[in-house]
């Protein structure tokens, strides 16, 4: 066991230099999600009760497909950053690392799957 205090052992090393990126991207995705989220909420209400063919037709226009892909990218990026902070704040055991890896993988999986689904619906097949 070291007799140095935790502060003493890190003093002078500087920050990890990754803090600003997390903070900034969380804000930028938040900003983008205001118009994209409101658009999606209004759109989903307009699609209540729509069957598969109607939904596919609706999503198929270039504008809507692009907006949907942007929404999904911003959403899952924002989600990854947010869940990461929750884990950092509450999980102090060795599960910390496992959960952080799961968080990254799940967000990337959900984002990729959702975006691929939109592209498939929009581009046919």
């Amino acid at each position, binding site marked *: 066991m070291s007799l140095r205090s935790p502060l003493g052992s890190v003093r002078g090393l500087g920050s990890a230099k990754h803090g600003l990126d997390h903070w900034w991207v969380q804000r930028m995705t*938040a900003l983008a*999600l205001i118009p994209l989220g409101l658009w999606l909420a209004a759109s989903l209400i307009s699609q209540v009760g729509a069957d*598969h063919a109607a939904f596919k037709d609706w999503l198929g226009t270039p504008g809507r497909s692009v907006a949907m892909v942007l929404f999904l990218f911003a959403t899952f990026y924002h989600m990854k950053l947010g869940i990461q902070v929750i884990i950092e704040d509450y999980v102090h055991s060795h599960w910390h690392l496992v959960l952080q890896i799961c968080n990254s993988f799940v967000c990337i999986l959900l984002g990729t799957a959702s975006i691929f689904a939109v592209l498939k619906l929009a581009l046919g097949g």
Partner: protein
Amino acid sequence: MAQVERPLSPHLQIYKPQISSVLSILHRMTGFGLGVGSLLLAWWLVAAAYGPDAFAVVQDFISSWLGRLILLGFTFCFFFHMANGIRHLFWDIGKGFEIKTADMTGWLAFLGAGALTVLAWIAGYAMRGGS
């Protein structure tokens, strides 16, 4: 960590709940709720990509009482997290920190989110023709 007995700051239960602190933790809880709800969104889109049969399964689930309950919670989480997120963005540029202002915008975000949730569901039921 060095094991030094230091005085602790008062724990959470010492403080009377205030609009600022309650909405702060609610922001995190609704954010986590949206994360759980995004599973439903991803399932819905992927099912649509698989075809009409898979899509119908998800639509049936969403139309069930459990699906609607989840969607209702998701709607409130969405509107509250967005409204309170806008508060956060204003704080980030240094605006709205006065206690009176912060209390007022807090109630606005909370009640506004509730009102938008009700409006969205009225519009949704109107689209379905009342069922």
